[in-house]
């Protein structure tokens, strides 16, 4: 069904003439099919709706990169939004606590908790050089404790010996003592499956949490989950304040909509993926892969990325030429800023400058704030073409217009203009030869 989405897109957009930017009608139509794709990928309806609402203003007026179509541009915008939503950065597991550090896994019946407990133990052993202890608190399901014990034996991971008839809270206490004795620095607690509406079972995990004070309490959820994902994540978060989500069965055919729904409604980061039944089938979560899967349009995304990279390359060339001629415009500055944003910092800009290695040291500890880059971008976008080419004409009334257009104030505009001036001077110097004094530190300071 998703494979067809690409065709549907082509259909919708082929009838439309190529425009330099996306207009409202194109966006509306494109987003309607995206919405359908999201729903069929099990993204919860309210989440799909909000996503679409967020994307709309970003898409309207978006420039269409040469050699791509409006449909492709929309897919790329949605993709970027999904990646951002799913987490810009990797969310590392938090082990900062006095050892033994407790980690608790909770979730619905059959979601994969026990298997995941063993996977996580092995992962921490290998990657974090930890000595884990596995503990099952599932006294209900037939052979649940036995299952974890066998997994421990098969993979030489220590498990807490089973004491029949002991209650979960007592097992938990026993585990804390046992770990200290055996020198285990991490204890992973597997719990029984429970539905989020089972009040007595939900209060059980609250009680366990207060006994264990775990550094991480993670929801183990099936990535094939449907619309109910929102309710599950919300209720578990309400009960025990989750610190992470682990999605299992990502090796299935699920589109991963549950991931989006859960992250979006709870803000709880997704930390790992289960990608098979074997203990080594366990991965750190990568937002971009899931985003690709939901849209089922990895090809389009990489196509647009490539096209925009090419465009960046062209822009860089133009900027370089301008530099050589000593004509550095606001437009060039904008493409530099965008490059910075994309490369996550100054490195992108570096490639354009002579005397790179010397400057690089300065930059490494410069720690540029992305927000300021964004603000500067907004300010430049509010300038007219004329103003961008020749910033000298920006007088008080123009400043007023630019600042209100970009949602900033005239101080911000002034700051940018000052920066630009410094930049131009520096560029002029550099274009004439090796900069003796390097880059004036103020430039970086202003980006912090």
């Amino acid at each position, binding site marked *: 069904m998703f494979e067809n989405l690409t065709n549907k897109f082509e259909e919708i957009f082929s009838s439309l003439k190529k425009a330099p930017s996306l207009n409202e009608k194109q966006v509306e139509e494109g987003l309607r099919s995206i919405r359908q794709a999201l729903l*069929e990928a099990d993204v919860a309806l309210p989440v799909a709706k909000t996503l679409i609402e967020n994307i709309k203003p970003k898409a309207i007026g978006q420039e269409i990169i040469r050699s791509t179509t409006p449909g492709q541009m929309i897919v790329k915008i949605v993709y970027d939004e999904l990646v951002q939503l799913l987490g810009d950065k990797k969310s590392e597991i938090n082990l900062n606590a006095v050892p033994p550090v407790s980690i608790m896994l909770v979730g619905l019946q059959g979601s994969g908790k026990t298997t995941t407990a063993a996977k996580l133990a092995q992962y921490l052993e290998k990657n974090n050089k930890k000595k884990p202890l596995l503990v099952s608190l599932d006294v209900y399901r037939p052979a649940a404790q036995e299952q974890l014990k066998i997994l421990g034996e098969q993979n030489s991971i220590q498990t807490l010996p089973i004491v029949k008839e002991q209650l979960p809270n007592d097992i938990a206490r026993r585990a804390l003592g046992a770990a200290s004795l055996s020198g285990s620095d991490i204890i992973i607690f597997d719990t029984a499956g429970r539905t*989020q*509406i089972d009040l007595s079972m939900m209060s059980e995990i609250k009680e366990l949490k207060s006994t264990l004070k775990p550094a991480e309490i993670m929801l183990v959820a099936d990535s094939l989950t449907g619309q109910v994902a929102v309710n599950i994540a919300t209720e578990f978060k309400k009960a025990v304040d989750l610190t992470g989500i682990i999605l299992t069965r990502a*090796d299935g055919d699920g589109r991963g909509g549950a991931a989006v729904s859960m992250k979006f409604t709870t803000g709880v980061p997704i930390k790992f993926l289960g990608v098979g*039944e074997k203990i080594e089938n366990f991965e750190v979560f990568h937002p971009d892969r899931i985003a690709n899967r939901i849209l089922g349009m990895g090809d389009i995304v990489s196509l647009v990325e490539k096209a925009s990279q090419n465009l960046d390359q062209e822009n860089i060339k133009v900027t370089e030429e301008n530099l050589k001629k000593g004509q550095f415009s606001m437009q060039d500055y904008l493409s530099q800023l965008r490059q910075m944003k994309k490369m996550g910092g100054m490195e992108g800009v570096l490639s354009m400058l002579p005397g790179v290695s010397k400057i690089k040291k300065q930059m490494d500890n410069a720690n540029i704030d992305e927000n300021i880059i964004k603000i500067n971008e907004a300010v430049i976008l509010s300038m007219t073409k004329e103003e961008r080419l020749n910033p000298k004409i920006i007088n008080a009334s123009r400043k007023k217009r630019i600042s209100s257009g970009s949602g900033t104030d005239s101080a911000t505009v002034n700051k940018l203009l000052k920066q630009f001036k410094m930049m131009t001077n520096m560029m002029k110097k550099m274009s004439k030869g090796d900069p003796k004094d390097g880059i004036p530190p103020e430039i970086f300071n202003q980006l912090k």
Partner: protein
Amino acid sequence: MGIFEKFKIGLNKSSKNLSEGFKNLVINKKIDSKTLDNLEDFLIESDVGVVSAKELKQIFTDTKIDPKKDSLNQVNLIVENYIKKSMKPLEKNIVIEEGIKPKVILIAGVNGVGKTTTIGKLGKIFSKDNKQVVFAAADTFRAAAIEQLEIWSEKIGAKIIKSETGSDPASVAFKAIEFSKKNNIDCLLIDTAGRLQNKKNLMDEFKKISKVLKKIDPNSPHETILILDATTGQSALNQVEEFQKITPISGLIMTKLDGTAKGGILLAIARKYNLPIIAIGLGEKEDDLELFRAEDYAKALMSSN
């Protein structure tokens, strides 16, 4: 507690059962295209799938709901009738006929949906009916899968045929049907490992289990039941599709309807595949399995209290 009451416990706690949701959408509202869109959206939220939601929207549109009369009641009736009409013909009971010994029931499904538990529950029903029941532990892969089935067999007084972990599941199934035939057993329930329908080797393995049984009884397995989990989204459709490609599925059981998932996907599956629906799982205990009844299912999905 009958299905209706139990099913509703879960549904009531989920914030929106259908009727409640419809109420907010149609009472004192013009039934215009916006309202119809909202109705469609709301149906999608219940996992009934985009297709059923669209069909229902079409029926709403064609029916010309009269806002002067009780519009909520009209909408409710339309949905209830649609569910009943789609699902009533799919009701199916499993009977252990006198003539067939053993009646072989093979259980299939992806990981963690509730196969083993459902076998325990089915075994309970049959043995209460004074049938002799044997379980075959043909999940030789998952840790403690055999032990789990063993505990169930003790609980309900069934015999279990098993082998070591890691052994060939088809050979366990063969051993079990051979044993059952020899000992005049009424019913053989075969537990299999969870397998995702997109894994070819595991699907082939399932086919092999199904085939090896025919050496003893060419008509077996008499039933191949696919277990579905109510919390599963659109993947459930693919699960039905792919398992059916491997071997004919004779019926479905949907588990975990005691949670907040409404299992609306069952409607989508009914519309698309016309497969018999046998029972629904309403909890983890041995008695938490109810025969599927379209009326009850429709009512439970719809009613607010």
